[in-house]
């Protein structure tokens, strides 16, 4: 008697577990778009969820921990003599894991680099480790995530006349590399501020556009990246960013990046980010400080 009761109980239990699982699975199939507007960030230059220049600890998209989100983006930065286009896709799973794919194309417009064309692909992975940037308003604990970006430089076009087709010919030690980073993001609603700090271990020259490691240095170095944003309202934020850069190449006295930005979230499906960015002089062949407009469009859920 006792045993049969136990069996019935067990059956009930396993059924309820199974039933719960199917309903959970059904819930998981449909994106819930349950996060608050803007709390997935925008798409940064290398395709990860973040600000414009730097990845944040926030997981991209609007899926809560019970769901998922995904988006596509296109970003263009135009300075006096160069242009950088990035497009890509990213998914955020259970507000925990983020996968991103981005393709960059860097081109020149000033002779003799007017035919310059360098392409790079970036695969990104980010995992949230602790904290919640939004809910934990009663503590100083930020949201913390770690990430990696695998970058593959696809070579240099437009300098064939000089015989230069690979970044290694400019002094880079490698044409592919991995960046590792840890990010901490805190939203201070009391002050309407978002703060982010990212520490990146990298060998990448100009994010990898000019390869990895160089004649001057060929080891991982820690680079600090920071973002501050003021939330004007739930659909509009303004802010500034700073990104430290290594100086590995003899032919490129690489400079840190800065920008000031405004990000607009008319809905959870679309965001537009406009910025004014300073990228510094790029290579010793052109000593001009490169500055210009940054425009990024993201669409998703």
């Amino acid at each position, binding site marked *: 008697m006792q045993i049969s009761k136990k069996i019935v109980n067990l059956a009930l239990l396993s059924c309820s577990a199974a039933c719960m699982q199917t309903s959970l699975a059904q819930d998981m199939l449909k994106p819930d778009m349950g996060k608050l507007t803007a709390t997935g960030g925008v798409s940064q230059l290398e395709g990860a969820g973040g600000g414009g220049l730097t990845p944040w600890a926030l997981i991209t998209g609007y899926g809560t921990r019970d*769901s998922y989100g995904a988006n596509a983006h296109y970003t263009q930065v135009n300075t006096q003599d160069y242009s950088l286009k990035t497009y890509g896709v990213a998914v955020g799973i259970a507000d925990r894991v983020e996968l991103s794919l981005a393709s960059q194309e860097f081109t020149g417009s000033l002779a003799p680099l007017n035919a310059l064309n360098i392409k790079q692909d970036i695969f990104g992975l980010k995992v949230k480790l602790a904290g919640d940037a939004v809910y934990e308003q009663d503590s100083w604990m930020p949201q913390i995530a770690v990430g990696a970006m695998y970058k593959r430089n696809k070579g240099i076009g437009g300098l064939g006349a000089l015989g230069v087709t690979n970044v290694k010919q400019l002094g880079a030690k490698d044409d592919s590399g991995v960046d590792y980073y840890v990010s901490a993001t805190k939203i201070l609603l*009391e002050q309407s501020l978002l703060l982010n700090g990212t520490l990146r271990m990298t060998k990448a020259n100009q994010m990898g556009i000019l390869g990895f490691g160089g004649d001057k240095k060929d080891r991982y170095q820690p680079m600090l990246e920071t973002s501050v944003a003021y939330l004007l309202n739930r659909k509009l934020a303004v802010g500034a960013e700073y990104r430290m850069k290594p100086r590995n190449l003899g032919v490129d006295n690489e400079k840190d990046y800065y920008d000031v930005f405004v990000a607009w979230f008319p809905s959870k499906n679309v965001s537009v980010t406009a910025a004014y960015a300073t990228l510094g002089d790029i290579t010793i062949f052109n000593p001009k400080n490169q500055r210009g407009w940054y425009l990024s469009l993201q669409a998703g859920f």
Partner: protein
Amino acid sequence: MNNILTHISKIAIGFFLLSSLTAHAQNSNDALYQSLGGKTGISTFVNSFVAIVLEDARINKAFKETDTERLASLLTEQFCELSGGPCKYSGRSMAESHKDMQVTNAHFNALAEDLQIAMEKHDIPSSVQNRLIAKLAPMQRPIVTK
């Protein structure tokens, strides 16, 4: 003598600073409450808030059986107390009142969004809205059980 006088004046200045500081603290204790327009202001946007929630397909099922007038009055009390106003929330704890509701983060956020929309409707500045949301956000822990 001179020395003693300087000491006394230093102490006096210290007390003055301290008292003005505490006075400031007392003043700013209900600063958010005042910015929200006091009890009348809070009750006005809470009424809109409840109306918006009842129209919100994402969460309105949970309020089918709810006495909405009582809900509005409890929310007003709660927001009044949280913002430093002279009220005492008389309802059940957040954990108890939500324990069987299977509230998800998406539900919780939908409610927060409706509150933002309600406050926007009544022209409460975004920075003031955020200060109230900052007080409510940690309630995710007792409320979201799913």
